[in-house]
């Protein structure tokens, strides 16, 4: 075994894991090579020296002064997420809740039909189906006084509404009266807002 091989193997932390034959060759080399003995002894001494090296301690007021330096404002962590969600919900409620409340308390006339092309008019608190108009489907009227002067080929649903039939007015289906449940009022409010918004945007686009 040459010196470089011996020195490399001798520095293994656990020489017992080496094959028996190799350990025997190492012992043989160590007995006959004084420089290698010295080399390994030096390295072992270095290891021991490092283990005994004087440690440096932190100053007595280290922790106290560190705590004073801790940042007061913290970054968002995962635990902040629910609070952020609550914040967003509160803002949404402010933005939409108030107009909805107004519309629920002071409802505006609103009409919807399964016939998308039906040209009904809303005038003040009245919804009018003009004489020459045919609504090919159901008509749902909210918070209005419905005047049918033309023809409705379907049912009419009156939600918190009244209706009158003109001389030429015809209704093929039934007239059903319904009342608003509290929750429906809010749904209606939201729907009304979106309709207002759509018509506003359409006006702005033109």
């Amino acid at each position, binding site marked *: 075994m040459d010196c470089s091989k011996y020195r*490399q193997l001798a*520095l293994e932390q656990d020489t017992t894991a080496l094959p028996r034959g190799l350990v025997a060759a190492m012992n043989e080399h160590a007995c006959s090579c*004084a*420089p*290698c*003995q*010295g*080399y390994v*002894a*030096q*390295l072992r*001494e*270095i*290891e021991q*020296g*490092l*283990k*005994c*090296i*004087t*440690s*440096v*301690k*932190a*100053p007595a007021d*280290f*922790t106290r*002064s*560190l*705590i004073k*330096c*801790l*940042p007061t404002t*913290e*970054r968002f*962590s*995962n*635990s902040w997420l629910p609070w952020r969600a609550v914040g967003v919900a509160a803002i949404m409620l402010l933005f939409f809740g108030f107009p909805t409340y107004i519309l629920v308390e002071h409802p505006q006339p609103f009409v919807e039909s399964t016939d998308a092309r039906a040209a009904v008019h809303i005038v003040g608190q009245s919804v009018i189906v003009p004489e020459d108009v045919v609504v090919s489907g159901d008509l749902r009227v909210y918070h209005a006084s419905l005047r049918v002067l033309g023809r409705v080929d379907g049912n009419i649903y009156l939600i918190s509404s009244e209706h009158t039939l003109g001389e030429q007015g015809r209704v093929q289906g039934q007239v059903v009266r319904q009342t608003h449940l509290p929750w429906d009022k809010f749904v209606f409010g939201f729907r009304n807002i979106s309709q207002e918004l759509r018509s506003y945007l359409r006006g702005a686009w033109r």
Partner: protein
Amino acid sequence: MDLVEKSLVSRAKQRDIHAFAELVELYKDRMVSFLFRMTGNREDAYDLAQDVFLKVYSNFHAFDSNMRFSPWLYRIAQNLAIDFLRRKKKIVYLDEPLSGDDDRVWQLESSDPLPEEVAEFKDLEGALERALLQLNPLYRMVLVLRFVEDLSYEEIANILSVPSTTVKTRLHRAREALRQLLVEQGYYEESQGGKRYGLQ
């Protein structure tokens, strides 16, 4: 990680200042000692140790409670130490393979001992301290973690994010490099039966 430490870490993660202070008390000496060995200067070691704990505090949300705390702490410390040495001295090329003798020695601003320091270097501890500071920081780090901080190969591998075999190789070379420096200082004679020489 024992139960007490685990509980402290868990509470400190929830921004419990008292638990955090207890953790600092537990590790402050080890951190200062490690950073002193890396920088060679007490004041720098104190400042860096403070930075380490501040970084721990601000990044606690990113720490996985199922992992051991001390390797994470040492990893932060070694990163800050390397950054500090980069800023203060020359550039340390972390990606460069550590082989041969070229990167063995870390140049100090003045490597000549002052007259009053000579007496100190006559003992092994003084000689080792001086030689350590001349080593490449990456060699210095594995030596300090293994022999001064008494960490296992696996723990060092975890801290340095390298395989255990790399730690063993690096440690082997670091010991040899340190011995060479002690030979150059005149503390050892080159492999002649291990006879010890003092300076001059």
